[in-house]
């Protein structure tokens, strides 16, 4: 038995060895090195653009399926066809991404992830095949790649921050610590294939202030920290998180609270204000809706951070749900499960808006100030809905998409649809 397998054994070993080497070289050249220097080849944006085109085509096929499956040997015009366009039109008027943000969204365009398609029924073998290929790519290629990157990023963070911690305090140490943090977060960003667009960077938070952002998922931290250096706030955890926390605090002062300290509001407020008073320390990053699982901490940060009386830099983060649902329903999924889902999605596309700093006004109490900041963030994130296409220059593509709808509908009328319809032709023309 063994002698039979022997020649194949070494062959398999060789193949595995080669593929690992190739993978690691690719990783290093295309992902890690650019991350270290903060440059980008633009591979992710290209990937995002091709995904968008693919989603549009499958959406078209899916949505017209109602008309296409009307049945009968001779499809012909029916006056009720107008309802199809009518329905889509009114749906787009009613559809609202801002208020939908807190429930897992039902996507109009099926983005080839089964978990987002709740009404899936067999439309065509082509679409199913496409989905199957998608699964293979996502779980077989993207997921291992991303997990490797994630481990690399986290590992480097721990090791390098510990090394930087050995330096004496001073400008050199701060400079190195900033670089190390940025680099590792950038690797993590690539580990999630996050494609982030930063707007209004002139409003980026400065030392001696608090950065406040809306909170959709734990990834928010990584997204913000890869563009700027912040002091993190949180509870001391055990295990891997604890190791990471202890390493990070060696390189630059983050604020970690013991479990017992968390309940003492005055202690929390004092530590935060002490940190802010020291202008050499980084701005504090806080999510008023709370990152902690322990709800009592959430209550305290909500008022606490606004009572301190320093400048607040609001930040709005908005995710594009077509690429993967970033929302974390913590009652349904644990952290590891959530990260796995994130890493096996197509990509995470989001926009970050830095809003101008705000301070508490005369006669305003903490709660009113907090509401004012939240309203500003909501407004910015809400505006994103209708101006979402700004960064992608989809204006031109949209016109073509309208014509595509007309073309497809005409084919239905004239009666030669499924046998000759090929979406390859559509991708090129789109």
């Amino acid at each position, binding site marked *: 038995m063994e002698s039979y397998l022997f020649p194949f054994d070494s062959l398999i070993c060789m193949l595995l060895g080669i593929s690992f080497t190739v993978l690691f070289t690719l990783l290093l050249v295309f992902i890690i090195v650019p991350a270290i220097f903060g440059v980008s080849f633009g591979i992710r944006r290209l990937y995002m653009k091709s995904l968008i085109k693919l989603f549009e085509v499958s959406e078209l096929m899916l949505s017209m399926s109602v008309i296409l499956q009307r049945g009968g040997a001779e499809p012909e015009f029916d006056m009720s066809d*107008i309802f199809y366009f009518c329905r889509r039109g*009114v749906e787009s008027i009613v559809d609202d991404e801002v208020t939908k943000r807190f429930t897992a969204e039902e996507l109009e365009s099926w983005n080839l992830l089964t978990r987002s398609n709740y009404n899936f029924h067999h439309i065509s073998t082509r679409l199913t095949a496409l989905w199957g290929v998608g699964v293979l790519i996502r779980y077989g290629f993207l997921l291992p790649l991303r997990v490797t990157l994630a481990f690399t990023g986290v590992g480097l963070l721990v090791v390098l921050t510990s090394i930087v911690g050995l330096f004496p305090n001073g400008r050199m140490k701060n400079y190195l610590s900033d670089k190390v943090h940025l680099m590792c977060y950038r690797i993590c960003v690539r580990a999630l294939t996050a494609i982030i667009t930063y707007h209004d960077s002139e409003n980026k938070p400065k030392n001696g202030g608090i950065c406040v952002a809306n909170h959709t998922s734990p990834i928010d931290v990584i997204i913000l920290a890869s563009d700027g250096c912040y002091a993190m706030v949180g509870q001391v955890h055990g295990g891997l998180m604890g190791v990471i926390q202890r390493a990070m605090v060696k390189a630059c002062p983050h604020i970690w609270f013991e479990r017992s300290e968390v309940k003492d509001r005055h202690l929390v407020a004092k530590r935060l204000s002490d940190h802010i008073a020291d202008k050499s320390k980084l701005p504090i990053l806080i999510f008023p809706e709370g990152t902690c699982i322990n709800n009592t901490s959430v209550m305290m940060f909500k008022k606490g951070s606004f009572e301190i009386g320093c400048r607040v830099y609001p930040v709005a983060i908005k995710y594009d749900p077509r690429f993967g649902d970033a929302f974390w329903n913590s009652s349904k999924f644990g952290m590891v499960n959530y990260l796995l889902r994130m890493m096996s999605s197509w990509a995470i596309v989001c926009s970050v808006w830095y809003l101008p700093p705000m301070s508490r006004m005369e006669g305003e109490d903490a709660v009113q100030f907090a509401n004012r900041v939240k309203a500003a963030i909501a407004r910015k994130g809400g505006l994103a809905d209708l101006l979402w296409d700004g960064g992608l220059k989809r204006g031109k593509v949209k016109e073509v998409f309208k014509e595509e709808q007309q073309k497809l509908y005409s084919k239905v009328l004239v009666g030669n649809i499924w046998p000759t319809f090929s979406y390859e032709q559509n991708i090129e023309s789109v």
Partner: protein
Amino acid sequence: MGSRASSLLREEDIEEIKKQTGFSHSQITRLYSRFHSLDKGENGALSREDFQRIPELAINPLGDRIINAFFPEGEDQVNFRGFMRTLAHFRPVEDNEKNKDPTSGEPLNSRTNKLFFAFQLYDLDRDDKISRDELLQVLRMMVGVNISDEQLGSIADRTIQEADTNGDMCISFSEFTKVMPGKAIDITADLQNGA
């Protein structure tokens, strides 16, 4: 998120809209949030430009006609009441409504009212008849440049022939209702899930 917007909508208004349109309280507040986010000029009313800013609507072949349906005759602003009235046509019919008292007046989302909404999309000059030209116009919007005039003309002629019962070469509302398939014509997904 929508908390500031909903505070501008008073309880009495919500009750009235609820009675008129049949939407639930949470649906109304949610749609008010949506109305508010579409209203760029912040003057409590939507103009045609506000609608056209919605990307999916802009690419809809019948987009302009649908937008038109929101605006009453000759006006270019629609307030929240009007917005809700038009949307109410597409509210899915709840089960408990089917047994409602027939004398209380027809709800806005009855089948007849939905069909009348569609009829008005065809009937641009509001003379209660769909002429061959009006039908051709809508067909042309839906197919773009992909079908020749003659072919489109014959499709239109055939449709009128099938529907027209009184020989006036136009489709009246009653003829229109007769040729519509019996199944419900609903917009279900968003409004249902929104509640």
